[in-house]
């Protein structure tokens, strides 16, 4: 939009030169004041809507998280418009369905940028779709603020327009657990560790990163195996883990295998002193429902947003969400919070610079730290966040932050309580 605005101003200036001197002076004065407003003067100068184009998986494999992202984006637009919009411009979202297809997502962003001529774009769901979409955005000079593409390949593209709206790259999801364990006095640390890992780019590397740090600190590995995504039965895997008698289990899980692994542990009465699960266990909406509330006690995971998050703005977000969609905090998917935070970043840049164009957003977000609903965010040159996730633990049926200490709501609960059955 910055480019389009400046072109419009340039055209007006050219036309003004062709008029009479007096008219030129008069019109030029008005026009220039209008043009000058966009780089940093009164917000009321441009009353056209700020159009933001987004492609989301509203159908297909990613339909559920895609719709969660849609709710987050829509909620942000509603809230910011109540406050008068961005620099006085009402936000208008254009959301189109990519059917969870990496091909369709390219077509969608191409159409949004060149056909609908949206001012800004926000990201789709998943790294699979974010990678091709971010290239389209880069080609047209658009900033690519995206809440759900945190895989290594997103950042390996070395694109300066990407900003992943979570506190850390996904593969660093377990680092905060390693920080916590290694902060314990040596005699209180686990001596042995097991790493059952799903063969998935967002699961196994998380456990591998923890393993590297644990082994460097002298925590002996007694089990380290990868299982295929098709593995329906976690029973035999848990049998072998249990036989190795590890003090700590660092499970590189996704969603359904985390449920199956917990159930297999309960059935085999295997209860390690520490149990960290990379994914699945961080969902207040689904995890207790699948394994039973009482069985969640003491399980660690990591996350950026959950209903009891200590981060400022959480209560207001939940209230606004409940008012718009009904339900309570537990029903909110963290993807909604991440999508909401994407919009917040635009507001923050606009408030700081008085502009909301792509070049300004890209340049501005590359410096400083930006407080959002999902933490204080800053990025490296490739769009990978520099921070870390919060270490959360299920305590009394709720997720609580237990590390790092400055944001902790509760001391870590160790050793893990027995399974309720």
């Amino acid at each position, binding site marked *: 939009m910055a480019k389009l605005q400046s072109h419009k101003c340039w055209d007006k200036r050219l036309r003004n030169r062709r008029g009479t001197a007096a008219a030129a002076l008069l019109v030029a004065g008005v026009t220039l004041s209008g043009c000058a407003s966009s780089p940093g003067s009164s917000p009321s100068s441009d009353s056209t809507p700020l159009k933001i184009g987004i492609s989301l998986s509203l159908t297909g494999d990613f339909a559920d998280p895609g719709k969660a992202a849609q709710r987050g984006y829509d909620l942000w637009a509603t809230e910011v418009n109540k406050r008068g919009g961005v620099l006085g411009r009402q936000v208008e979202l254009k959301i189109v369905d990519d059917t969870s297809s990496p091909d369709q997502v390219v077509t969608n962003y191409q159409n949004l940028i060149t056909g609908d001529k949206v001012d800004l774009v926000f990201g789709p769901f998943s790294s699979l779709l974010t990678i091709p979409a971010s290239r389209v955005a880069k080609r047209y000079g658009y900033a690519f603020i995206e809440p759900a593409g945190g895989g290594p390949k997103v950042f390996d593209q070395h694109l300066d327009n990407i900003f992943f709206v979570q506190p850390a790259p996904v593969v660093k999801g377990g680092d905060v657990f390693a920080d916590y364990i290694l902060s314990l006095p040596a005699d209180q640390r686990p001596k042995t560790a097991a790493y059952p890992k799903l063969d998935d780019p967002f699961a196994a590397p998380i456990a591998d990163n923890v393993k590297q740090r644990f082994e460097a600190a002298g925590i002996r590995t007694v089990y380290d195996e990868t299982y295929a995504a*098709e593995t*329906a039965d976690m029973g035999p895997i848990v049998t072998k883990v249990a*036989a190795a008698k590890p003090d700590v289990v660092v499970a590189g899980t996704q969603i359904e295998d985390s449920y199956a692994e917990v159930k297999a542990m309960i059935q085999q009465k295997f209860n390690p002193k520490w149990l960290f699960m990379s994914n699945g266990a961080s969902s207040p909406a689904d995890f207790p*429902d699948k394994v039973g509330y009482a*069985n969640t006690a003491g399980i660690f995971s990591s996350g950026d947003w959950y209903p009891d998050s200590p981060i400022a703005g959480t209560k207001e977000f939940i209230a606004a969400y409940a008012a718009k969609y009904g339900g309570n905090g537990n029903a909110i998917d963290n993807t909604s919070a991440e999508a909401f935070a994407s919009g917040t970043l635009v507001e923050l840049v606009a408030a700081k610079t008085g502009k909301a164009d792509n070049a300004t957003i890209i340049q501005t977000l590359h410096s400083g730290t930006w407080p959002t609903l999902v933490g204080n965010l800053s990025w490296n040159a490739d769009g990978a966040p520099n921070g870390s996730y919060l270490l959360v633990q299920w305590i009394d049926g709720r997720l609580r932050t237990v590390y790092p200490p400055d944001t902790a709501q509760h001391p870590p609960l160790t050793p893990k309580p027995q399974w309720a059955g």
Partner: protein
Amino acid sequence: MQLAAQAIILGVLTGGVYALMASGQTLIFGVMKVVNLAQGAFVVLSAYLTFSLFTGFGVDPFLAILITTPAMFGLGVAVHWLVLRPLKHEDVGQLSLLVTFAVALGVEGVLALAYETTYRSVQPGYENRSWTVAGLQISEVRLYAFGLSAVMLAALYLILERTRLGMAIRATVQNPTSARLLGVSSERVAALGFGLGAATAAAAGSVYGLLYPFNPGSHYDLISRLLTIVVLGGMGSVGGAVVAAMIMGVGSSIVAALASPIWSDFTFFVVLLAVLLIRPRGLFGARARGAL
């Protein structure tokens, strides 16, 4: 030793559940020479029905079978009547693959609309309990599931061996032309056979929902497993499906527990390949034509 014993227990109990699912699949092939790619989707559909009956009306998953079995039998007969019966006889083998796959996709789509794609599981409160016997853990629900599979398979055996319908089905399997000459309506038998195959999915689905989290896309993994079990056992042989399911259950479990889980499924395919090289019709395929 303890590890191997635990793995065998887990494998036998899991194999029993797969035997039930695969028995319907192989029955349908035996009667109609139709490879039913919708069997996995029928199992998932039954799991959802069980889920709804449990969450909506508090019906225990094992009792729900009394409702889901006739429902799935009706659905099976309806699917046969609507989409398989119109196929020309000579093309039925090939076309049925496409048609039943379309049915599977249709079921998946309807389930995704009705229940969304979130994982569900049935939690009656006893799903995680287990007995400790000589230091080994025996999951209650898996043992019930195994028992249910045994009962359902026995019922299937009795239907096939002791009823007029079973006699008609066996006659159709052995020699469709002679059966027709003796007054057996092959279309009616095929419809009822397909219904019976779908009905086995009902019980299997209830158990599946208790044991594993599922979503509408779960049928893809299921059908690939069921097909390999049926091929290993010999297409059309119910007994072969039971033996093959046990080989898969115990083999996968032992490999996962004693070696590495990444090889557990692969090992099964190695066994499958080896058996097919020696016996191209599967373990019981050669005599299964007349031995339902």
